[in-house]
C-alpha cells in the first residue's frame, strides 16, 4: 500500500437538541511522505477530524485506515504536569509507547536536542515559556519516530525564530518519509509547508488536492476567503 492514511465517508453526529453534525461524509486519501494541511474556519471540524484519526474519538459513521504502526499527535493546547522536567516527561512518555528505559532516554535526549531544549531539559515544565512547551509537545509527538504525525496548530504561540525552527523540523520529518497532517490558521505557513490541502467547511470536505492548484495565481489566504465566501470583499 502506498497510502499512509485513508479517511472513508467519516461522519460525526453529536447527540443533543438539536443534534449537531460536526463532520459529514469526509473522505480523502493521503500518500506516504507528504504534508497535508487541513484548513477551515473556526468550528469547521478540523480538530475533531484529527482526534478521530488519532483514535481519541469514534466516528458515528465511516472508517479510518492507517498504514502505520505508530502515530504521533500534538494537540492544539498541549497540557503537561508542571512539576515534571522536560527530560523526565519525554522519558516517561517513551514508556507509554512501550519503549524500554534505555531507548526512552536515547529518544528523549535526541528530540530535546532537535527541538533546541537540551539546555532546559532539567527545568520543570511549569517554568518553560509557551513557545518552549510547544516545542516539547512536538518532541513528544515525534518521539519514537512515528510514520504518521498529526499536528494541531503546531506553530501557534511561537516567535518567528521558533516558527522557522519548527517548520524546518516538520519538513525534515517529511523528507525522512513521515506523513504529516496539520491544521493551522496561519495560511502563509500552510502555503510554505503543504504538498496537499483539504478545505473543510461546516463539517464537509469542500476541496482536497494540490496546494498549488488551489492557490492558482493568488496568495493562499485570498484564495481561501474567495473559496469559502465569494461575496466577501
Amino acid at each position: 500500500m502506498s497510502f499512509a492514511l485513508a479517511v472513508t465517508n467519516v461522519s460525526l453526529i453529536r447527540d443533543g437538541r438539536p443534534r449537531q453534525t460536526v463532520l459529514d461524509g469526509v473522505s480523502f486519501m493521503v500518500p506516504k511522505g507528504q504534508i497535508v494541511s487541513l484548513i477551515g474556519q473556526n468550528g469547521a471540524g478540523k480538530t475533531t477530524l484529527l482526534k478521530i484519526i488519532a483514535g481519541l474519538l469514534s466516528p458515528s459513521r465511516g472508517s479510518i485506515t492507517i498504514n502505520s504502526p505508530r502515530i504521533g499527535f500534538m494537540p492544539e493546547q498541549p497540557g503537561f504536569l508542571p512539576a515534571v522536567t522536560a527530560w523526565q516527561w519525554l522519558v516517561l512518555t517513551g514508556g507509554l509507547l512501550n519503549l524500554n528505559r534505555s531507548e526512552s532516554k536515547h529518544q528523549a535526549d535526541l528530540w530535546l536536542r532537535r527541538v533546541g531544549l537540551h539546555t532546559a531539559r532539567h527545568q520543570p515544565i511549569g517554568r518553560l515559556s509557551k513557545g518552549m512547551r510547544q516545542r516539547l509537545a512536538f518532541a513528544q509527538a515525534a518521539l519514537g519516530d512515528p510514520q504518521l504525525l498529526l499536528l494541531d496548530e503546531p506553530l501557534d504561540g511561537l516567535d518567528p525564530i521558533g516558527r522557522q525552527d519548527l517548520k524546518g523540523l516538520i519538513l525534515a520529518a517529511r523528507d525522512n518519509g513521515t506523513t504529516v497532517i496539520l491544521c493551522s490558521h496561519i495560511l502563509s505557513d500552510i502555503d510554505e509547508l503543504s504538498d496537499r490541502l483539504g478545505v473543510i467547511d461546516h463539517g464537509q470536505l469542500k476541496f482536497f488536492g494540490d496546494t498549488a492548484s488551489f492557490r492558482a495565481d493568488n496568495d493562499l489566504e485570498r484564495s481561501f476567503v474567495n473559496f469559502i465566501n465569494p461575496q466577501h470583499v
Partner: protein
Amino acid sequence: MFKMRWWRPPLSLAGLIALSAWQSRGLLGGAILGVVAGLSARFFATASLGQDARVMIDLLLAITTIGSLAIGWLIATNLAAAEQERGAGLLLASKPLTAGQYAVGRWLGIVVGSALIYIISALVGCLIASLGQQMPLAELSLSWLTSGGELLVLAALANLLACWTTSSLASFLTLALWFIGHSIDVLVMSSGWQFLGYILPNLNRFNLHETYVTATGLPGTFYVLTGVYALSWSVVLVVLASAALKKRTW
C-alpha cells in the same frame, strides 16, 4: 525491535504521576504533618489521656493516616483530574494506551504518590514521638500495612471519580466517601439495611489503631483477609474507571 509489554505503559504513567507528586512538595507536606502528629502524640501521651505509650501511638497513627491520605489524595487526584482540565490527558491518551492500561496506570500513580507522603509523615511522626518512649515497632508496622489497604481502596475511588469531575470535586467526594466508608457499620446497625455493607467499601476494617490499643494482637489470617478485601475493592473500582475512560470524550 522492542518488545510490547502490557505493564510498561501503565507503569510509566504511574511514574509520571508519582514523580509529579514528589516534585510538587508533597513530601515536604508529609514531613510537616509528621512533625505535627509526633508533637501532638507526645503532648497527649503525657497529658490527661494518660501515660500509656500505646495511646500515644494510636493517636499518632490516626493523625498521620488521615492527614497523609488527605494530602496524597489532594495532590494525586488533582494531577489525575487535571489531565482533562489542562489537556495532559490528550497528550497521554493519544499514545497507544488502552483504557485498562490508562486506568491501572493512574491508580498506581495515586497509590504511589499518596504512599510516599504517608510513609514520610509516619516516619517523621514516629521518630519524634518515640524519642525517649517505648515503641513496639512490629505492631506499629502491622498497623501501617493495614492502613496501606485503605490507601489502595481510596486511590481507586479517587481514580474513578477523577474520570468525571474536576480535581477539587474529585478530592472532596473522595473525602466524603471516606467518612461514609468509616461509618458503614454504624449505618448498617442504625438502618438495618445489611446490603449497605456489601455495596459500599467498609473502611472501618482498616482501622486497627483502636484494636491495637485495646487488644494484644490479631491473627495473621486477619491481615491476609484485609489485604484481599482491599485488593478486591480496588480491582472493582479500577474496572469501573476503565469502563468510564472508554466512554470518555476527549
